[in-house]
C-alpha cells in the first residue's frame, strides 16, 4: 500500500528513551476467567497525544484506568516519570466519559475540586479555576450548576478540572462520546489548541477512527479479547493546515482507510 511508510511496526523498543513519561510493561488484566488485556508493552512520549483505538471490548478503557491507577493490573507494571505506580498520583489527571461532575457544586467548584482535595486555599484555587474556565471557553458560567449546561459544556468543565491540577499526563476516556457531532468537531479542534498551549502528554481513548487520526501524534490499535497491541501508527499529518483542509487531506484519508482495513476483521 502506498501509505505503508506511515505506519511503524508494532514492536516496541526497550525502555531506553528518556522521553517516555509513561511506560506500560507486560501489563495483563483478568476479570475472573475473562482475559481483558494480555502482555501490553507501550511507551508514551512527553508532549505527544497518543490514542488508544479499538473496537468495543478491546480493553482500551481498562488500560487507561490501569495507567490512571484506578484499576489494578493483574500483572506487569506502570512507570510514570521512571517510577512504578499502583495508585492515582498528582502527575496524572483523568477526564471521564460521563464527565463525573458533582451535581451539587458550581462550575467553579467542580473545576477547583482537584485543588480542593489537595488543601489549596479557596482564593488560590478559584484563581486557577477561573484561568482554565477562560481557556476552555466557559467564562460567564462560573456559578452555574452542571444540569444547567449542555453535554459539551459539561465535558469542558471535566477537561478544565483535569488541567487545573497541572498534571504532566492527561488521560481522556472517550471524552467526546456523549457530545453531538457538531460539537465534537469543535471540541477536537479545541483539544488540539490546548495540546499546543499546555505542552502536556495526552493519552486519549476513542472508538472513532476519524477522531483518532485527526487529533493524534500516534495511534495504538488494540485487538479485542484479549486486548493486545496489534499495530502502532504515526499519522504524520500537517497540523498547520486549517481543520477543514486536514479533513480533506490525502494523507489523513489514507490513514483512516488503513486503520479501517486493520479493524474491519473485528467488526461483525
Amino acid at each position: 500500500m502506498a501509505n505503508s511508510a506511515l505506519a511503524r511496526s508494532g514492536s516496541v523498543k526497550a525502555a531506553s528513551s528518556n522521553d517516555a513519561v509513561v511506560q506500560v510493561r507486560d501489563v495483563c488484566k483478568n476479570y475472573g476467567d475473562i482475559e481483558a488485556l494480555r502482555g501490553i508493552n507501550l511507551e508514551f512520549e512527553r508532549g505527544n497525544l497518543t490514542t488508544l483505538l479499538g473496537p468495543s471490548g478491546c480493553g482500551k478503557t481498562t488500560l487507561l484506568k490501569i495507567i490512571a491507577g484506578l484499576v489494578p493490573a493483574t500483572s506487569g507494571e506502570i512507570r510514570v516519570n521512571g517510577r512504578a505506580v499502583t495508585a492515582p498520583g498528582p502527575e496524572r489527571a483523568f477526564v471521564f466519559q460521563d464527565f463525573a461532575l458533582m451535581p451539587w457544586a458550581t462550575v467553579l467548584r467542580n473545576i477547583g475540586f482537584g485543588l480542593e482535595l489537595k488543601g489549596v486555599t479557596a482564593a488560590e484555587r478559584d484563581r486557577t479555576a477561573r484561568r482554565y474556565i477562560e481557556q476552555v471557553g466557559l467564562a460567564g458560567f462560573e456559578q452555574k450548576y452542571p444540569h444547567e449546561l449542555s453535554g459539551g459544556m459539561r465535558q469542558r468543565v471535566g477537561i478544565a478540572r483535569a488541567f487545573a491540577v497541572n498534571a504532566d499526563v492527561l488521560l481522556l476516556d472517550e471524552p467526546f462520546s456523549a457530545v453531538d457531532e457538531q460539537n465534537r468537531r469543535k471540541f477536537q479542534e479545541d483539544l488540539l489548541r490546548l495540546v499546543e498551549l499546555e505542552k502536556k502528554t495526552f493519552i486519549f481513548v476513542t472508538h472513532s477512527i476519524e477522531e483518532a487520526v485527526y487529533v493524534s501524534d500516534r495511534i495504538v490499535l488494540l485487538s479485542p479479547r484479549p486486548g493486545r497491541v496489534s499495530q502502532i501508527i504515526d499519522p504524520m499529518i500537517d497540523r498547520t493546515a486549517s481543520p477543514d483542509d486536514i479533513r480533506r487531506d490525502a494523507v489523513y484519508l489514507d490513514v483512516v482507510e488503513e486503520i479501517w482495513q486493520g479493524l474491519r476483521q473485528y467488526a461483525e
Partner: protein
Amino acid sequence: MQMSVSPAKLRDGIGAPKEVPPTVLEKIQSFADERRSFWIVVSLTLLFASWEMAGRIPISFAFPTFLETLSAFGEMVADGSMHKAYLITLQPLVMGVLVSALVGIGLGVAMGLSDKAEWLLAPVFIVLQAAPMAALVPLVTFVYGIGLTAKTLAVIMLALPVIVLNSYKAVRHVNPSLVDMCRSFQGSRVQQIFKIIIPDASPVLFAGLRLGIAAGFIGVMLAELLITPTGIGDLITYHRSVANYAHMYAAVASIIAVSTLTLAGLQYVETHLLRPEKRRK
C-alpha cells in the same frame, strides 16, 4: 404537597388565595400557571370544604365539621391544654427521632461503605422493618414501664429501621464515577466519604429521614395510646371518652399538621444546605 386538582374544579378555589383579586379571571389563570402555592391552597381548600360538607350531612354523629374542629382547636390553644400536651408528646418524639437519625444514618452509611457491616446488620433491620411494631410496644412496657424511656423506645423502634435501610441504599447507589473521580485526584477516604459519598447520597438519605420521622410520629402516637395516655394521646383519649368529638378531631388534626410541617421543614433544610442546585430546577 399534592397538586391533584382537576381543571374543572379550579373555579371552586378562585375565592381562596388572598393575593388574587377575584375580579379578573386571566390574572388568576396566569398566577395559577406559575405559582405552586396557588395549587396548594386550592388543594387544602377542597379538602377542608369536603370535610365541612361531610360534617354537615352528617356522615356520623361523632364526625364534627371543619369549622367546629377549628374552633375547638382555638379553645384548646386558649386554655393552654394544647401547649401542655405538645410539651409532653414532643419529649419522646424529639429524643427518639434524634437518636434514630444519628444512629440510623451512622449505621446505614457504615453498612453502605463496608460489606462486613452490611452482613452483620442488614438482617436485623430487615426483620425489624418487616415486624408489626405495634405488637412489640406492649413488650417494651413490660421491660421499661410506662415512662419516658418506653415511649422514646417506641419512637426509635419505628423510626430507626427505615432510616438505616434507606441510608444504606443511598450509599450503595452513589455514582461510582464520582468516587473514581475523587480517587483520581488523590482524595483521601475521609474526603471521599464527606465530599462525594454523603452529598451524592443525600437525596435518598433525606428520603429515609422523612420516612423515619413520619414513622416516629406513628411511634409516639402508638406509645401514647397503647402505653399510657399522655400528651396528645391523652387529649384524644379524654375527649373521646367524654364525647367532645370536635376537640378530639382537633388534637388528631394538629398532630397531622405538625408532622407535615416538620417534613416540609426538613425538605427546606435539604435543598438549602446540602443540594443547592435543586432550588434552580
